[in-house]
């Protein structure tokens, strides 16, 4: 290939790598943070902050005697002025609903748990994107995935010489294969 056209291809490659990198930088960081958050879904709630407060309603109650007045009394102790609805998940429990909170009272011993839910700032929004919780976003997500491949390939072939893929690049790329391969082999033996 003539040197001139080779140079212009290299230039296109560098421009693609640079500009796609700039364009997708924010999304890449959002997906990475969301990825870490969702990896640990068993240890925390990455979408919501659920603030639980244990309450004591002093005594035991009979389901038959639970009425709006008693629910208002429970609600006042929980710090709520009004309630939307109450219902009985079982014979021993009553659940009270508020705008962004609930109260579960164990009627037998008068213990209760008040739960207030709010969206976890930033992570909720990142997770909405990562989980494709917006219908059409999966197509944007597909395009993003293809662009990541292009950014990676253009990065791999960008440099020549001892710091290029044919130099140290091939060894580092091979080393990068070791952790996923080790995980797959270990999984096979489990």
């Amino acid at each position, binding site marked *: 290939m003539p040197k001139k056209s080779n140079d212009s291809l290299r230039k296109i490659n560098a421009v693609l790598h640079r500009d796609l990198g700039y364009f997708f930088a924010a999304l890449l960081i959002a997906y990475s943070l969301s990825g870490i958050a969702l990896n640990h879904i068993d240890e925390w709630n990455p979408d919501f902050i*659920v603030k639980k407060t244990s309450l004591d309603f002093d005594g035991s109650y009979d389901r038959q005697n639970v009425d709006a007045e008693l629910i208002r009394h429970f609600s006042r102790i929980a710090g709520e002025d009004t309630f939307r609805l109450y219902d009985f*998940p*079982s014979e021993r429990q009553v659940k009270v609903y508020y705008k962004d909170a609930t109260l579960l009272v164990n009627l037998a011993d008068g213990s209760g748990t008040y739960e207030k839910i709010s969206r976890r700032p930033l992570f909720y929004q990142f997770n909405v994107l990562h989980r494709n*919780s917006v219908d059409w976003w999966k197509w944007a997500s597909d395009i993003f995935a293809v662009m990541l491949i292009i950014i990676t390939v253009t990065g791999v072939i960008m440099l020549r010489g001892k710091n290029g893929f044919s130099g140290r690049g091939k060894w580092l790329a091979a080393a990068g294969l070791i952790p996923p391969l080790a995980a797959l082999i270990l999984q096979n033996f489990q």
Partner: protein
Amino acid sequence: MQNNNPFFVLLACMLPLILSGCNTASESPDTLVQQEQDQQKTGVLLVSHGSHSETWRTTLFKLEDNVRERIIGNTHVDGIKSAFMEYTEPSIATRLKEFDKEGYSDVIIVPILLTVSSHSFDDIPTIVGIKENPESVEMLKLEKIERYTPEAEVHITPLLDFQEILQDNVLRRARDLSQNPEEEGLALIGYGSEPYKEEWTKLFEATADHVAAETGIDTYSIGWCGHIVRYSPDSTTTAVERVLEKEKRAIVIPALVAFDENFQIRIIGGGIEKVDNNQERVLYKPDSILPDPGVEKWIVDISHEYSKIIDKKQ
């Protein structure tokens, strides 16, 4: 003398119409009741959890097929459909829109769920607009589960946690696997629910006691396979090992509504595989509560009962 005033001409034209209107108002009460009943149209919606597994979904559609004739034939129900709460269509919202479009006045929702959980108590009522549980509202939005308040009046029936249905079902399946009851114990594995663990445990304990009384298999343990244990096989392994501490063999029964590869094979099957010498010591068939004539009968009976209540209200 001929009157050409347009008002009188219009009045003369409308007179028969006005008189016919008066006639309608003087119809007998029987005719009115008949008309209201004509407008009344009741549907049954069988709602289950939903799964990515095709086998699971097929089982639930088959359940609908099995009860359709008995429900429509013996009750004042005009139509029956199935819906899944999550993962796949037809969703609850899709089906309720269909009922609305077809002019139904009442929809009886029959949850095909074993016992109380957040899904039955909060999520389904929130989807159909009866409740607005803050956590369900947020989760449904994240999971892209549509909420729809239908024009038809919705009636939600109680759950399947009538102990006899599960007791008879588990007893039949345990007997099928049993080789020598004196040397065996029972490991019951269910989906579970964090806030209602006590209710689930009581239901399973009563079931295991029934099996013990009928067969003599009196050692038992309970394990979970759902979100309560983060879908881990470890709870199954622990439940089986607890039985094997006292007995020679463990009979493992999945107390799950239908078969799902992820649950009966990967989680429960995976949990059993971790038990030493499991091929000799564990008796397991990856089956489910369905198909079960008792469940079908319960669906028919509860639909009948609710359709009668709706009829009386009219």
